[in-house]
């Protein structure tokens, strides 16, 4: 038998070489985007934030001439603002929960079951977005009047629920389609019935994308006004309704600014929550791209 072949000498040769540690390349593109976006996205927000504290800010001063918390006090001490915020949160939560409860199983059916008219019905949900809302106003109002839903919490919930259908069906459908069938089969194999499979396996597996759908729904519903005006008045006044009232025809821009900054807090929280639950791809996958 031959002896062990000697290793190529390269190892010995380079052993004395100094170890030079390279720095990881700097992500310049990233910084460029960061700066660009900071200007485009953050500047408007920051300016608005400054306005919230400005009592007098006239051109061409770079900073407000007079700052103070006066508008904050005035805005936040208003009963209706808090009531509206509370109400909005209640409505939005209710809508989102109901929507999830009725839409997710439906989305599952669209994704996995074969039934007559499946594709047509699926497409029909596009009309929620495609037909201008006000075109539906009279009809909806008529329907709701006879049901005594005008000006009630549940009336607003119902009309906003309709508005959530598109996102809450379409996004989950592709979420469910993305769940590996074998995961479901494995569960059935160990003895789970179809319903159990849905709740224990499919739903949690699709969760990131479903969370995206829920988030979009929550945000959209929270800021929705058209349907809320129509059905909600006079008794139901949501946060954005109050906000628009402040912004639209008020002389003092500060009211709006204050509310704007005030609403950053929930937005930031949502944003953080969103990042925790899902990656961007989860969002996007949901939209069928």
């Amino acid at each position, binding site marked *: 038998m031959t002896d062990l072949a000697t290793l190529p000498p390269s190892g010995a040769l380079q052993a004395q070489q100094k170890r030079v540690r390279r720095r990881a390349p700097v992500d310049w593109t990233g910084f460029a985007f960061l700066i660009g976006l900071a200007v485009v996205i953050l500047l408007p927000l920051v300016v608005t934030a400054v306005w919230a504290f400005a009592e007098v800010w006239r051109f061409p001063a770079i900073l407000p001439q007079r700052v103070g918390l006066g508008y904050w006090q005035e805005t936040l001490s208003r009963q209706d603002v808090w009531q509206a915020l509370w109400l909005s949160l209640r409505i939005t939560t209710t809508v989102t929960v109901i929507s999830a409860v009725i839409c997710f199983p439906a989305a599952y059916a669209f994704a996995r079951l074969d039934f007559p008219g499946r594709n047509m019905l699926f497409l029909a949900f596009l009309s929620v977005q495609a037909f201008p809302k006000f075109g539906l106003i009279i009809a909806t109002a008529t329907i709701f009047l006879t049901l005594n839903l005008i000006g009630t919490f549940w009336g607003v919930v119902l009309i906003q629920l309709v508005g959530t259908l598109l996102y809450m069906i379409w996004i989950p459908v592709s979420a469910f389609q993305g769940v*590996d069938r*074998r*995961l479901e*089969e*494995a*569960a*059935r*194999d*160990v*003895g*789970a*019935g179809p319903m*159990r499979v849905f709740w*224990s*396996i499919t739903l*949690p*597996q699709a*969760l990131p994308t479903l969370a995206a759908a829920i988030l979009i729904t929550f945000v959209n519903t929270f800021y929705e006004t058209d349907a809320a005006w129509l059905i909600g008045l006079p008794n139901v006044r949501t946060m954005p309704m109050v906000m628009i009232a402040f912004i639209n025809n008020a002389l003092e821009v500060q009211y709006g600014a204050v509310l704007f900054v005030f609403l950053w807090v929930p937005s930031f929280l949502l944003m953080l929550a969103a990042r925790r639950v899902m990656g961007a791809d989860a969002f996007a996958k949901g939209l069928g791209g």
Partner: protein
Amino acid sequence: MAQVRLSGIAKAFGKVTALDAMDLVIEDGELVCLLGPSGSGKSTLLRLIGGFETPSEGTIAIDGVDVTRLPPERRPTAMVFQSHALWSHMTVHGNIAFGLKLRRLPRAEIRERVERVLDLVGLSGYGARLPSQLSGGQQQRVALARSLVIEPKILLLDEPFASLDQHLRERLRDEVRDIQQRLGITAVFVTHGQDEALAISDRIVVLADGRMQQVGRPGEIYAEPKTAFVAGFIGAMNMLDGTLADGEIAAGGLKLPAEGSGPARLAIRPEDIALSEPEEGRMVTVRRMIDFGSHVVVDSTLADGTHLRVQTDKAVRVEAGERVGIRVERWTVFAEGEEPRRYRSDTVRSFRDVRYA
């Protein structure tokens, strides 16, 4: 614990016939491998047994009971998927316990049985981890444990180790075999690795184009393939097109005794060719010598350029371009429409052969 009987099973997906006219009985406690090229219907057959598909024709009976129309959750089968199909939102414990929870067993018993099966697959102490925190091999073992814990009568495995590396695959396949034997369950194993099939099965079912080609013990299928397809598919094989005439088959410059006439295929295993003194037999030219450590394969060409693989002892050394003699010890001739005919040259057998044959 259970016998599976497939009678006249056929399955079509739209226009594609995935399986046709299958009759097969898998005996209690047997481990059967389904072997065949991609698309031959292996997975389809397994999924039919598991209840994930309904046959277009025929019936499936388990222990004599017709289960053709039962959904998967009501069959005494458990499947291990190629992609392991672990539920990533549950811990290892959760994955394994799921089937038991469905059976409403008391908590303590669930815990105990999960512990036991984790031990069985060598993963004690991993219960609290998430599947994503395990390596590929560990994940497959969890999938196995998940199927085993519900004590199925029939274990179905669909290429469970295809994505793992050779070492791990070998270890796991031996483990599966051991566990199956210990628990005495019936198992159907799909693979496209022939070595795997040869190594663990009691019987092998060779499929091609949705039809059974041959059913038999591993050695039998290897040694006595019934069709040219099986011969070429199982194990390494030199397949030469030749002509039968005058009690001989002539193929690629090689002439060997054989009966019959007309075109035929000559099949010779690489290990059935021995290198010999050049003058002693027929000559080949060495193209390349491949040293597998435990044995050596010589890639050579016959007079007319046809490739011939020869497998010999690991101590043999030849050079590319060298001309060496060969002696064919066994060969098989496949002629259209006839049973294969097997031949062997009468060479002297060594002491060991005589003792253990």
